[in-house]
């Protein structure tokens, strides 16, 4: 029965979070806590000749200093999520070489943060600068400076993946559109920075970590391996997490604190400051994409050839994923017969690239949706009409793309039509024409997208040629306590998604309760929360795996409660129902047992249990989404499993004198299947769309030629404020997925994927004479296109 799922239930979290009673990492106190600070490389690329920490160690209040060499002696290299072709050895601190400006070289633990930061300044490091390599295309060239000479190249992955008759399609085509697009480095920059506390209990030789790491399963495995400690002796706890968006993961910092804790015998805390966060945690991968599109003159898209260079920076945590993940939306919503994809995953001397809302897919969507806009222009077709001619049709669902993605459900034409109607597309076109006559630059941009959810880790086999981790799964627990009260926990720590509420809604429906009667544990605690290596908050996976884990655990415990009640009531379990916290015999009023009475039997009166029934009333469920499958013999793979879709419409005005772009109206129509909590879903759509707008108009991590980051504070790395973004209008269709237990699909990445393309298409439509090839579309750039025509840069955005 579903009473609560689907209702916009106010969040359980909000009473504490609106009153300042949340408990984030920085709010955790530990007796004897030391504070760590890190010395970071001022060079993009250099050899470390020597380090002298003696002056830092002598500063009063300093209890321990850790150098890279000491870390390397005391721990093992950190294993990447996706193995590199040649095993590379990379410890929690740089050992003999630094590979980006901001890379940690040494760490200090002191009685307070200020003392630790003072001590860091006393560490003497002699560097021998090496040539940086900042541009990914230059990094591919023979003779480029190498980050890892033992690898012999900066290229971690280069391949040619060909699906269908690509060359035939290009031969048969009426025309070919060729374009080159670039995406900049940007990030979702959660408002709370990343950090951890590590504590070593010498008596039991166990370690406890408190951290806002969003992927505890993977991190626990790395910590065990790198510390050389059995995982049975590690505990990891996530408190409230102040946003994550993919960024919050850096096992190296946890290791550094653990080594300092072991050395000093005291708990050690490290929390990034904002400059460290912007300089060194994680940037969305920048890159260059060459797109060739074969088409017929009626607008039919036949095939794509795509060469995609992903700039990993110094990323050894999850290298190559920025290419791989694009297989999930390389066809976007279109029926495309053939695709050739040539990925390059390239190391450069910059901040590690990593997961950032949408990861790779915003760039993929940007390239495809920009190409579609240009094709519409070339053929003189309305951009909406061009898309409608190419969509996968609802009757074709589930539809398999050339690369093996299976679009499970959705009505792409209806989504766009709903958007056009609600946006008053025709009326706005007329408004645009009138404005043009007055000399005003109005533009309308459309972008439509598929939103993949739930990564199948088997897809990494495409790169490594062998299977390590695979599938898509999560774990959950539901327990009816001895007093009949219900508690649930999930292997995925919430980072703002309101899981305490949504999990309570799901469990409440399964057990015939109200959400207020279900206590859901905050965050994560490896001692009490069931988890997998795959556990965590990533890849939009809640609907794909987590819901199944919660439903499974709730049903197991419900079935057991009903078996116990049936035995006590001398009825058949099938004749019982759970309503309002009571197991009742259908049709027999007054004959029932409360959960409290059932729990009493389960925990205390165990001789009253049915024959063969174990005591206790707790169940754990590990849900693997059945769509996950290995790479097939044609190298096709479901890299992600369940697909939402959306249509974005954007109206902008460009101020001719200043180059300022103002968004006058923005509409999102989306379909994420069954909406478990529409209030939460709408917030995700708003938020993710603004991430897309920020990337389109404001945000950029800019590096100089020497590999120095020029935008390392919120004064020069600009985030959207309430004055920069419009009231986003949201409407939705609801096409449930047949492949998730409640029909829900992904919604977290949402607008971050088509948002940049929608805004760019609108600005290009306003400017008419220019082709936008890169982001962000800053006033400076727009002004120069409008006023410096004729110069070589005028048709390029940089």
């Amino acid at each position, binding site marked *: 029965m579903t009473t609560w799922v689907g209702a916009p239930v106010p969040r359980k979290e909000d009473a504490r979070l*609106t009153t300042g009673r949340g408990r984030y990492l920085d709010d955790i106190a530990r007796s004897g806590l030391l504070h760590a600070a890190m010395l970071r490389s001022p060079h993009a690329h250099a050899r470390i000749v020597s380090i002298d920490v003696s002056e830092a160690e002598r500063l009063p209040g300093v209890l321990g200093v850790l150098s890279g060499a000491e870390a390397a002696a005391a721990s093992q290299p950190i294993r990447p999520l996706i193995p590199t072709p040649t095993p590379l050895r990379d410890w929690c601190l740089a050992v003999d070489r630094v590979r980006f400006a901001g890379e940690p070289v040494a760490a200090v633990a002191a009685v307070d943060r200020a003392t630790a930061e003072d001590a860091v300044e006393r560490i003497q490091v002699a560097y021998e600068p090496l040539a940086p390599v900042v541009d990914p295309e230059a990094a591919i060239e023979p003779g480029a400076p190498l980050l890892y000479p033992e690898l012999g190249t900066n290229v971690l992955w280069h391949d040619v993946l060909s699906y269908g008759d690509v060359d035939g399609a290009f031969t048969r085509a009426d025309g070919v559109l060729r374009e080159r697009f670039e995406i900049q480095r940007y990030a979702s920059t959660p408002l*709370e920075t990343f950090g951890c506390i590590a504590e070593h209990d010498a008596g039991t030789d166990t370690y406890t970590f408190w951290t806002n790491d969003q992927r505890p399963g993977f991190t626990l495995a790395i910590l065990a391996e790198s510390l050389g400690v059995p995982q049975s002796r590690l505990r990891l706890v996530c408190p409230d997490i*102040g*946003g994550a968006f993919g960024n919050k993961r850096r096992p190296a910092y946890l290791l550094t604190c653990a080594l300092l804790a072991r050395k000093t015998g005291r708990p050690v805390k490290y929390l990034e400051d904002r400059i460290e966060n912007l300089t060194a945690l994680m940037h969305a991968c920048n890159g260059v994409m060459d797109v060739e599109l074969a088409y017929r003159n009626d607008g039919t898209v036949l095939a794509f050839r795509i060469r995609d260079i992903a700039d990993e920076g110094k990323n050894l945590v999850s290298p190559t994923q920025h290419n791989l993940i694009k297989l999930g939306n390389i066809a976007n919503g279109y029926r495309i017969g053939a695709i050739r994809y040539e990925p390059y995953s390239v190391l450069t001397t910059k901040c590690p690239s990593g997961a950032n809302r949408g990861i790779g897919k915003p760039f993929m969507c940007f390239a495809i949706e920009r190409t579609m806009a240009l094709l519409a222009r070339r053929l003189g077709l309305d951009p909406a009409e061009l898309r409608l001619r190419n969509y996968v049709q609802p009757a074709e669902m589930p539809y398999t793309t050339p690369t093996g993605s299976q679009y499970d459900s959705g009505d792409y034409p209806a989504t766009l039509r709903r958007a056009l109607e609600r946006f008053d597309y025709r009326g706005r076109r007329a408004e645009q024409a009138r404005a043009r006559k007055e000399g005003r630059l109005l533009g309308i941009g459309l972008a439509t997208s598929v939103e993949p959810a739930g990564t199948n880790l088997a897809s990494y086999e495409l790169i490594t040629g062998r299977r390590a981790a695979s599938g898509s799964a999560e774990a959950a627990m539901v327990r009816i306590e001895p007093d009949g009260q219900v508690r649930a926990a999930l292997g995925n720590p919430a980072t703002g998604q309101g899981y305490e509420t949504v999990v309570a809604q799901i469990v409440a429906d399964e057990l015939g309760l109200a959400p207020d009667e279900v206590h859901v544990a905050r965050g994560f605690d490896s001692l009490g929360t069931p988890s997998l290596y795959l556990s965590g908050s990533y890849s939009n996976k809640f609907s794909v795996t987590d819901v199944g884990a919660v439903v499974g655990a709730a049903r197991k415990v419900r079935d057991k409660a009903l078996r116990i009640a049936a035995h006590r009531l001398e009825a058949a379990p099938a004749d019982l129902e759970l309503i309002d916290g009571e197991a009742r015999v259908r049709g027999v009023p007054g004959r029932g047992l409360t959960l409290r009475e059932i729990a009493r039997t389960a925990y205390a009166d165990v001789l009253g249990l049915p024959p063969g029934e174990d005591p206790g009333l707790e169940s754990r469920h590990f849900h693997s989404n059945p769509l996950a499958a290995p790479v097939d013999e044609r190298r096709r793979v479901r890299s992600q499993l369940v697909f939402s879709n959306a249509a974005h419409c954007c109206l902008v005005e460009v101020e001719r004198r200043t180059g300022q772009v103002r968004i006058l109206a923005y509409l999102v129509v989306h379909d994420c299947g069954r909406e478990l909590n529409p209030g*939460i879903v709408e917030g995700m759509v708003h*938020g*993710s769309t603004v991430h897309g707008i920020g990337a389109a108009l404001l945000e950029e991590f800019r590096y100089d030629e020497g590999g120095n980051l020029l935008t390392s504070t*919120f004064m020069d790395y600009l985030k959207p404020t309430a004055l920069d973004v419009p009231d986003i209008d949201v409407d939705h269709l609801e096409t449930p997925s047949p492949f998730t237990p409640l029909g829900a699909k992904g919604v977290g990445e949402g607008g971050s994927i088509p948002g940049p393309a929608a805004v760019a298409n609108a600005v290009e439509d306003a400017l008419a004479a220019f082709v936008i090839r890169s982001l962000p579309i800053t006033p400076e750039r727009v002004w120069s296109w409008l006023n410096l025509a004729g110069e070589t840069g005028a048709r390029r955005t940089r």
Partner: protein
Amino acid sequence: MISVRLTVNGRAVERDVPPRRSLAEFLREDLGLTGTHVGCEHGVCGACTVLVGGRSARSCLLFAAQLEDATVTTIEGLTPAAGLSALQSAFRDCHALQCGFCTPGMIVAAHELLAENPAPSREEIRAAIAGNLCMCTGYVSIVRAIEQAAAARRGGSLP
């Protein structure tokens, strides 16, 4: 160490502080008022917003030692002994928060706005919170929540 006397959330406080201790650190570490969050420490993000003499201020940019005789109000001081304030209820009802890290500062900024302007327009609301970054909500639901709270405080309801 510098001795400082001030009023925090209606209570007199007297402490010796190091000269470089920020107001944010003082509130969080010396007084245990962890509802005030620190997001950037360079005065841009607004997470650490508190009221000093009724005006919003960045507690990361003030030194505790500057605040002799000042009256400081934090999110804890804007929270009723039981239940939620009108603003807090509206934030919950409108789903105006996700991770919640910006929320205390956002509510402090909204409180200042409504104290001066009980019926702000949408543009005035957006201007009032433009110094507070929210990375989760895209601001849409926050603006709605402040509108709803303003209406509730005026005793009316939104059309």
